[in-house]
Structure formats: C-alpha cells, structure tokens
C-alpha cells in the first residue's frame, strides 16, 4: 500500500512537471510567434527585427520617446522597398487621402492647389467658382495657417488634410500676400470637382478631346463631351493622351466603352500565370468616328491601355513619341489606420496581347514635339490626316477604316 501511494505521488509530480514544461513551451510559442509576431505569423528570421527594435529603444540617442508609429511606417516602407518594384509603395494616411481624392476627381475642400517652395506652402492655383476664389485667395499667396494651425514645416499633403473636411463646415485660412500683412479669411467647404478633361472644335467636323488623367468621374465627363461634339456634327476626333500618367483602370475601360463599344479592353497576367481578359462594356451608341491618338513618353498606365486598345481595334493611329511602358497593374489596399499599400498585382497586355512593360507603344507616326515651336506639330499632323481622310472617304472605303487611313496617307 505504501509503495502504491509513493508511486501515485511520483506520478503526480511527474505529471505536474510535464504540465509545467508544456505550459512553458506553449506560453513561449504563443509569446514569440503568436503575440509578438502578430496574428500567428511565424516568419523565419524575424527575430532580428525585434532585436533591432529593442536596441533602438534602449540605446538610441534621442531626446524623448521614439515614435513607434513612425518606426512601423518605416518598417512597412522597407518591406516594400525590398521588392525592388518602384510601383509597390506605402502611403501614410494623409498621402492616401489626397491620393484617393485625386483618383475620385473630387474632394471636399475650398478649391486650391498647393506647392511647397523654400519651406513655404504656396497657393499655385485657385479653381473657378470655388470657396477659395470667392473668399479672395489668389495664386501666389503664402498659406500661413489653417484654423490656427501653422503650416510651418508641414508637407503639402498634411496641409491638405487640414484644409479638407465635410461639406458646409467652416475653415479659417491665413494667407500672406506681401511681407507686411497677412489676411485671415473664413470660408465654407464645398464639394470640389476637378475636371479631368477639356474638349474643343479644331475645325468643322473635327473634335479635340484632351484627357489629363483618368478619375472616377472621367467616363461621365467623356459622355458629356461626346454628346456636345455630336451636337456639333463632329465626324472625327483627336484624342490627346500626352502627359496622361494614368489613373484608375476602371475609368479607362469606361471611356473605351464609349469609343469602341465592344471587344477586349486589356488583358491581365496574374500571379499564377493566369490570363484574364477585361471586356469593353457593350455600348451600341459608341461613336464610330476615326480617331487620332496623341501620345508621348509621359503617357502611361491607364492611358496606355486606352491608346493600345484603340490601336488594336484598328480605330485610330497613334501620333507622337513612344509611350512610357508601364506594364504592371497596382491595386490599392487600405490598411486599418487610414494608410494604404499600393502593390503590383499583375502585368497587363494590350487587348491584342502585346506586352508593354519597358517597351511602351510605338506610334504609327513618330514625331518630335518641339516645345520651342509655337505650333503643335504632332496635333497638326494628326489633324491633317483626319481631314484628308474625311475629304476622300467613300462608301466603299470608309474613313473609319484604319486601312482607309493608310491608303489616303500613302496616296
């Protein structure tokens, strides 16, 4: 009986010891891998990150406490930099907000554009009809404070965050026009729309549409412009995409719907080598005019998608300089705290399957545009071709056919 008791006790102690060791092990793992690496991340070699973090907290020469938020942002930025992809970037909350405003083509504010020059935030332009215009802010004014907060040392996007806010709320802006005096102006915020395009009639029957960037509002703006052109009996159009660095791909596809009406807009080559074709939204009302597309080295991304699709569908020729050649697609992922990650998620190919990365689109008519010259030689060449095409087209050889365009050019 005594032996049994002893054995039972021994077993209990052993059980306790095993339980204890198990607890230590589970606790340690939970701590190192779960708790400290976050959400069950078990990344080989990540320990050096926390080692470095701790050394900095303990030893770094710095007056006051280190800013953990800034360090975290730095770490995210560093991970993205390690990918060696210039388009995969981190945007802090203020940058993310101004970026999404830019892509939406509208924001809630007072309607000023700002630049940072020699440590001062300057008003570079004031939108017509905006609260800023009505309050009397002029381009060239120095923006000194917003609601009493000094702009000294603030980057432009953070000043923008101060200025922007819900429609109808008041904002107090201090501007300095000359060294002597400063003005304090109060205005109410409004919804400000940033036009992404402008159109005009070049000649009777020939329209000119200049799309500066593709925002969420661009398809609506294009619809309005095309409607107005129709009303003006436009039969051919110059589409100027020079300097257009892109924007949202959805907007580009929306615009293609109105110009092509059907077909493939572009193709995406995904991570696992799968190819996805994105259709042009079907539109029986799409214009059938011959198009001349102006491009240059700054024509990139969504603008290249539009130019390539028009070319691939044989709806127009390209004039100008080889395009930028941005063949990758970025998705914008907002993070919990208002910051965001722009990440390359796919390559894209033109609707006919051409790769654009690095090479860009080679125009049919390569022309140097000379800034020195008053005349826009690229626009002139496109206009002449369209004009000739309109003049000589017949029912059997319609102007809208690209080959027709070629024949006329060669003749």
């Amino acid at each position: 009986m005594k032996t049994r008791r002893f054995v039972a006790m021994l077993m209990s102690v052993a059980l306790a010891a095993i339980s204890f060791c198990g607890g230590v092990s589970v606790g340690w793992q939970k701590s190192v891998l779960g708790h400290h690496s976050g959400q069950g991340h078990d990344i080989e070699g990540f320990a050096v990150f926390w080692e470095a973090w701790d050394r900095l907290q303990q030893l770094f020469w710095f007056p006051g406490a280190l800013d953990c938020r800034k360090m975290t942002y730095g770490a995210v930025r560093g991970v993205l930099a390690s990918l060696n992809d210039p388009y995969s970037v981190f945007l802090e909350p203020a940058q993310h907000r101004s970026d999404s405003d830019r892509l939406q083509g509208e924001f809630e504010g007072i309607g000023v554009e700002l630049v940072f020059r020699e440590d001062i935030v300057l008003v570079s332009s004031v939108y017509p009809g905006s609260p800023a215009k009505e309050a009397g802010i002029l381009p060239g004014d120095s923006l000194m404070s917003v609601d009493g907060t000094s702009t000294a040392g603030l980057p432009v996007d953070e000043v923008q965050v101060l200025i922007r806010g819900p429609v109808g709320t008041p904002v107090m802006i201090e501007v300095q026009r000359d060294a002597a005096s400063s003005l304090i102006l109060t205005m109410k915020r409004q919804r400000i729309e940033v036009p992404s395009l402008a159109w005009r009639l070049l000649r009777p029957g020939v329209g000119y549409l200049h799309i500066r960037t593709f925002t969420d509002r661009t398809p609506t703006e294009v619809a309005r412009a095309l409607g107005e052109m129709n009303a003006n009996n436009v039969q051919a159009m110059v589409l100027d995409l020079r300097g257009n660095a892109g924007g949202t791909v959805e907007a580009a596809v929306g615009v293609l719907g109105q110009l092509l009406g059907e077909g493939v807009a572009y193709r995406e080559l995904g991570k696992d080598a799968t190819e996805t074709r994105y259709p042009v939204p079907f539109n029986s009302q799409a214009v059938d005019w011959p198009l001349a597309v102006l491009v240059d080295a700054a024509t990139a991304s969504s603008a290249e998608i539009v130019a390539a699709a028009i070319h691939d569908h044989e709806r127009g020729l390209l004039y100008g300089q080889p395009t930028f050649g941005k063949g990758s697609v970025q998705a914008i992922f907002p993070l919990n705290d208002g910051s965001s990650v722009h990440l390359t998620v796919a390559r894209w190919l033109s609707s006919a399957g051409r790769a654009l990365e690095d090479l860009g689109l080679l125009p049919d008519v390569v022309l140097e545009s000379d800034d020195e010259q008053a005349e826009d030689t690229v626009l002139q060449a496109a206009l002449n071709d369209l004009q000739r095409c309109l003049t000589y087209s017949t029912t059997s050889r319609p102007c809208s056919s690209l080959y027709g365009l070629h024949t006329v050019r060669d003749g």
Partner: protein
Amino acid sequence: MSYCQKRLFTLLAVCILALTAFAAGFGIGRHVLPYSRSPSSAGDDEIQGQFQIFWQAWDLVEDRFYTTEPLNTQEMVYGAVRGMVESLGDRHTVFLTPDQADLFRDDLEGEFGGIGVTVAMTQEGWLRIVKPIPDSPGERAGLRTGDVILEVDGTWIRGMDLVQAISLIRGREGTEVRLKVRSPDGQEAELVVVRAQIEVPTTESRMLDQGVGYLAVYDCNSLAPRGVRAALDDLLRNDPVGLVLDLRGNPGGYLHVAKDIANEFIDDGLLLIERDSSGHETTHRASRGGRAIDIPLAVLVDSASASAAEIIAGAIQDNARGMLVGTTTFGKGSVQVTERLSDGSALQLTIRRWYTPADRLIEGQGLIPNLQVDITEEDILAGRDPQLERAIAYLLAGPA
C-alpha cells in the same frame, strides 16, 4: 468517503495540480522567457496594436504581389529593419547585413584575410582593381590597376553589390581564391591567389628636410595606436624641432583609439565629454606618460577629417597643445556602437553625443582651424602642399 469518492478526489486533485502547473509554466513561458526576443520596451500592447498594419502589409505582399520569382523572406525582413532604422532620420544609425557587418568590423580592425587590392564597382557591375597594395598576394599573382574581376570562385560578380563581392574575395589566411580577370587590353585569364593577412597601412611617418617630424594617421582603427607609438619613437630619436600630425582624410574609427592617440600628445588634460540623450555625462581625461607632450605641434585637418579624428584635433585645440592648420573639419559629434544581432547582421546606432574639452558640440559645424589654409586642385597637380608648408613655417618660427 467511499473508495470511489476517494479515487475521484485524488484524480481531481491531480488534474488541478497539472492545470496549475501548466498555467504557471504558460505564464513563465509567455512573459519571462521570451523577454529578449520581443519588444521589451514599455507599452508592449500599444506597440503590437500599432504594429498591426505591418502584418496587414506583410500578408498583402505574400498573397498578392506579382512576381515571377519566389519572395525572398530574408530580404523582406532586412528591408523592414532597414526601413524602421531609416525612419529615425539619423544617417549614422544604419542596419548592416551579415556581410556588411563583417566588412565593417574588418575595416575597424585594420586587418583581415584577403588578397590586398583596393577595388571599385564599375558602371557595368564588374569589380575594377583601383590599386594593389605593394607585395600583396594580389600584386604577386599579377593583378594590376585597371584589371577587371569577372568571377570569384566561379560566381559572376555582375549583379552583386560591392560589399557582397568583397566578401567573396576575402577569407581565411592561407585559403585559395580563384579569380577570372580581364585586363584592359581585353585578355581574360584565371588566377589562383592564396589569401594572406592583409594589414591596411594606417600610419606613415618621416623626417622632413627642415628637421620637422611628419606623422600621418589615415584611420583610427585598432592598429593605429601601435603605429602611432612606433612612429613617434622613430621620429623623436631624430630630435625634431616640431611635429606635424596629419589627420586629413581620416574618417575616424574607434573612440578609444582616438583617446589612445590623443594621450600621446596631451598630459593630464580633458580629452572629451560624452552625453547620452538623458543628459548623463561621462568625461574622459588623458593619462600621464605620453610620448610627445611638450614638442611644438601642428595638426593638419580638412573637411574629410571626421569623428574620432575630430576628437584628437579638438582635444589638441582646446588644451592649446597645438595649432590646427587646414580647412574646417567634417563635424560629426556623435558616438556609435555596433550591436550584433542573432543572425550575424548588425545595428550601428548613435548612442551619445560628444563635446570637446571646452564643451563645444561640433555636430554639423566642425572644428575651425587656427590657421585656415586651402589646398587647390592645381596645388595637388603641381605636387604642392600649402597646408603642410604653413604648418612647417609655424613650427620653425617657434611658438609665440
């Protein structure tokens, strides 16, 4: 209590014991053991909360980033450390990969196993021989200035950074390294070089015509104090009228080396004051028994004299031990330590500021020489050294 009840009771007790033991273990495991591997600083949960977005971003990269090659987790971790360190905005606080850390240590030690040639990266990504050290294994094997190294032990150099390439060439004394080399006339050859212990020349000394002793210190690495002492013994045997200490181009090195060298010239004065960010102060005094504490002294400095070299120059200037001659120095008034991390990488970080004996902070300002003398491009081409000439003239005129 019946037998069954008793059994049940015992079982329950054992279970409770086991659970308690597990809980105790869990607590210890979670909070005590991993202390050094987790952010040990205060506000642990706050940091973790803040850090959530890092893991969001990390997951996005793993799940969604388009790349034709597998992700390099190691590079991503190093990228995270590098980005975190850069966010502090101090250019002297940097992260070093294991290769970089080794190279950095070798350079501070002043000696390492290698082939003894200085190299630079060409635009095309090859390694060009800038200068072979005389009588080094590299020179003896036939490496000449202008030769280009294409492969090291069968590995292409192209695409590597300078540090990676140098790390491949260096290695233990006595081992062999196979190099594929292209000479300027286009000839390619394979060379086998046996690595030796390479000592980078740190000091240079000679007697000048006018009876002035000249001592140049190129670097404040571990070898420098020994070199300085040997050179001083040599020079002083010639009974010079004065000494020129040339610290031009000296980028610094170890703080203790700067103290050792300053000790040879200053007898029992203050050398420097260190302060950490909480204001805690450490003063460093010269010990007695330096070799050159009385002899007239001129110190040559320029804009590339930095850090430890500025400690020496600042101590000599503030103790009125000699004249500084030349141009304003670099102005690095901070002290770094190199902390090795568990995988061989390292963090070089600023831990303190240092002040001259007269309590001057030189960060961003530099030391202004007592005698400001420029040296021009034409001077260098014509082999003239107006700064040295001015120092000699001062020493020959005798201290005022």
